[in-house]
């Protein structure tokens, strides 16, 4: 578990999975990829705070994947709920922001303008605000000028 490697010694040709199918049906998973998730990260954090904290505390008790499946499903459902709301209300601004992020190596600093419009849309429609925890003076996403302060 100390290093990560991609699955590289895979079988070739036709493969039939010998393990039996799981007893319960597969649960729905979040369908958003990395850039939309990064764009909506702070809103997911504030909207799903309770479920996320539950999950993290559960993981702290016991790191076994099987121990925290229920809390994990709640986290997934909450994130899916927020994604549905974002798609209904602020889809265009969200798309503009995450497409900008994709062009700039998913760095926040490069995409402040689309981020501003997206944050305003989300605040007006969904009443969620992006808060950077532990920010000292003006948070970096609200500064007009980041070079000369």
């Amino acid at each position: 578990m100390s290093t990560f490697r991609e699955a590289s010694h895979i079988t070739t040709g036709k493969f039939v999975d010998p393990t039996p199918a799981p007893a319960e049906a597969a649960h729905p998973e979040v369908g958003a990829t990395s850039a939309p998730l990064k764009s909506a990260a702070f809103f997911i954090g504030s909207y799903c705070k309770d479920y996320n904290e539950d999950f993290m505390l559960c993981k702290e008790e016991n790191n076994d994947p099987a121990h925290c499946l229920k809390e994990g499903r709640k986290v997934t459902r909450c994130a899916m709920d927020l994604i549905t709301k974002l798609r209904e209300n602020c889809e265009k601004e969200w798309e503009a922001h995450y497409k900008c992020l994709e062009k700039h190596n998913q760095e926040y600093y490069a995409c402040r303008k689309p981020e501003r419009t997206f944050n305003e849309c989300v605040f007006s429609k969904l009443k969620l605000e992006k808060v950077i925890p532990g920010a000292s003076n003006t948070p970096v996403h609200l500064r007009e000028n980041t070079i000369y302060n």
Partner: protein
Amino acid sequence: MPVPFEALIPLGLITGFFGVSGFFFQKLKTSINEGQPPRFGLDRWDRVMLDRDYRLTGTQRGQAHETAAPSAFSTNSAWNLEKEHL
């Protein structure tokens, strides 16, 4: 004294070679990354997220903002194909 134009010929050639190769290299990079600049400075998190993006969309740099993942997502992980190491 007139400008020694013969000295500018190799300068022009070198600039041209740099320019042409840079142009083609840029086109190659953006064509691999579907019209975007390549990702750099990737750590383990980013690599795992890129693999997840590929499983969700089918292309290397495609993005999607669906609510639910397609049904193939639950079974298209390459780890299920990993050979047993005994």
